[in-house]
């Protein structure tokens, strides 16, 4: 799975990173506000269309395929273990009656599936996909440096903005480090099979070299920062100032309209 910025020439890529942050926050808020699974499906289709518009459709689909497994887990766990039979949940509305669909008891352990529990499980799974899907588009269409610059513009302390931007840029590198350490230890005879317990048993053999590798990377990064006079002045300047254009204003307007529609749909239920 690709885990970083993908350079493309698209409308989405050219948008100001602040606009994309606003869009991301609105998408996150709307996925919480929307009370029905069907509306979340519509939202996911819109995000998929945006991914296609940004020419990152294929990697985004791979990203979403990885997200499907936990979404399924969230749905199934919530369907089977819905307290109050799924009735009590904020920001959700249910249709129909709360019929009992399945009930099985093994002593104190009871599994109950109700119509509301089923809807709740579906809503939570889709809600998670609704949170992750725009994040995928954002990661693939925004350079981490632009993201850090946008955070700085939001008056977030520079050290935090820098750390967040650098951390996002480091994700693919760290995943590569994990894969490299596991491969190196397997070459030394480590039994890294598919069983979870045996993996947990050999985890220290992977974790300690990984930490050593990360500390070395941090030391190199700190040296690079110091050679560029990191922290020498309180007021930092930047060579790059993202422009806020008409397209950005339109995108922010559409995002706020969607947020308003989400609030209205929430109030209507």
């Amino acid at each position, binding site marked *: 799975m690709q885990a970083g910025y993908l350079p493309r020439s698209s409308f989405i890529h050219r948008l100001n990173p602040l606009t994309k942050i606003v869009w991301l926050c609105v998408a996150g808020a709307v*996925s919480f506000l929307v009370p029905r699974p069907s509306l979340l499906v519509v939202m996911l289709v819109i995000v998929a269309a945006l991914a296609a518009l940004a020419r990152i459709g294929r990697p985004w689909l791979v990203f979403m395929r990885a997200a499907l*497994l936990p979404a399924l887990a969230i749905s199934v766990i919530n369907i089977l273990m819905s307290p109050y039979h799924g009735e009590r949940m904020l920001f959700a509305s249910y249709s129909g009656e709360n019929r009992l669909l399945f009930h099985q008891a093994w002593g104190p352990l009871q599994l109950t599936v109700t119509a509301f529990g089923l809807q709740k499980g579906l809503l939570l799974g889709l809600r998670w996909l609704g949170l992750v899907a725009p994040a995928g588009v954002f990661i693939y269409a925004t350079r981490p440096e632009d993201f850090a610059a946008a955070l700085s513009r939001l008056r977030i302390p520079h050290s935090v903005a820098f750390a*967040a931007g650098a951390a*996002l840029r480091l994700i693919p590198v760290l995943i590569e480090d994990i894969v490299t350490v596991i491969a190196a230890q397997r070459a030394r005879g480590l039994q890294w099979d598919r069983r979870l317990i045996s993996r947990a048993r050999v985890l220290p053999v992977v974790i300690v070299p990984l930490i050593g590798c*990360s500390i070395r990377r*941090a030391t190199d990064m700190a040296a690079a920062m110091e050679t560029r006079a*990191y*922290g020498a002045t*309180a007021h930092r300047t930047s060579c790059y100032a993202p422009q806020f254009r008409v397209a950005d204003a339109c995108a922010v307007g559409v995002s706020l309209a969607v947020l308003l529609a989400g609030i209205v749909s929430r109030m209507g239920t």
Partner: protein
Amino acid sequence: MTRSVHFSARDVALITIFSALVTVLVALTAPAVTVATAGIVPIPVWASFIWPMGGVFIRALVGRPFTNAFSGVVEGIVGSFILPIGIFGLVALPAQGLIFDAVFGSRRAKPTRLLPAVVAGALAGAFFVFIIVYVFFQIRNPFPLAASLLGGVAGAVSGALGCLLARHIARLGIMPDSPIGREAV
């Protein structure tokens, strides 16, 4: 260097890399563990088994006040893209970091001591699970309390592991000029 810059370049680099590493580990392992254990270990409980380990370890490496709050903000921002809790991580993870900072705020409560590490891990783990179950999943019966208890136990074990890991790294002599390295010398 001006007074407004609290963390040195090396502190920022360490916080950045280890925050990203812990977030990636949670994102990669939590869904797999939940599915493999058929939901017996829910995602928040497994996450509260990983976060405190990272929290104690980062604190041991950097050793400055508000290290964990800073790390929590970075984890929250990164986690909002790759974790199941999305932008909710921006609230839960910095708050969890503040718990570590509160526990390790006392001069005697060092992250390389087992008891403070266990207490910090337990509190952070219990808080994380409670806030996720109660606010994110919006479950309002005794389940959040039971789940937080489980999260507290996972966090305590994780805190202890983080402490042992920090001691082990100090003994290896990888970072002799860090707080744990100086302590080992």
